[in-house]
């Protein structure tokens, strides 16, 4: 009976890569929402960057889970306050080893019109990248590695 709305902490983390089919399934679930006119989706894919002349073969992701989920809950709340017309916001991030070419990050926003969905996805992606304590070890050939840092 508190005056403050209780916000559920959702788990955004999935073990292993995000299946491209999951993207389609996530969108399909919104077909019953007749107030939605626009979905905007961002997907992060592991790039085969060269590090010291060696191509990245995979990124092993770890996270400070409890802090990441607390931060994400705050970001979600702020996103819905900034774009009140947004009907849904789904965020998923991989943990564990994700190979080059596989998907590791998904943000999906849905709204009646494109402007809200577009702006919310851009804003949420940027906030997640800069504020969530997620760490990436770039796996290189010959059992070497490097630590990824977001630009």
């Amino acid at each position: 009976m508190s005056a403050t709305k209780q916000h559920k902490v959702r788990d955004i983390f999935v073990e292993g890569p995000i299946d491209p089919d999951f993207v389609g399934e996530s969108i399909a679930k919104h077909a019953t929402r007749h107030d939605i006119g626009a979905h905007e989706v961002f997907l992060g894919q592991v790039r085969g960057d060269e590090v010291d002349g060696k191509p990245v073969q995979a990124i092993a992701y770890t996270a400070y889970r409890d802090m990441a989920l607390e931060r994400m809950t705050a970001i979600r709340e702020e996103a819905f306050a900034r774009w009140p017309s947004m009907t849904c916001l789904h965020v998923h991030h991989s943990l564990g080893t994700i190979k080059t070419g596989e998907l590791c990050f998904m943000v999906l926003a849905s709204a009646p019109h494109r402007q809200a969905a577009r702006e919310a996805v851009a804003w949420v992606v940027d906030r997640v990248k800069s504020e969530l304590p997620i760490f990436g070890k770039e796996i290189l050939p010959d059992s070497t590695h490097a630590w990824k840092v977001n630009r």
Partner: protein
Amino acid sequence: MKVLLFGLIAEKAGASEIDVQGSSTGELRQALTGRIVGLDRMMYAIAVDRRIVHEDIPLTGSEEIAVLPPFAGG
């Protein structure tokens, strides 16, 4: 007090947590530098109860403390 370590810093320390003493985040930084080789040349942040703290604040010892290298999510 127990301090959680992540990513590159956990790798350098060879552990995902470490026991160090300090009555403030400033003292904690000094204690960590003595325990983790090369930490003084690394970029890192200290989180107290899951929030990043930039100032020097007092610690009672009951807080959840973590040492975080640069983020790489996305």
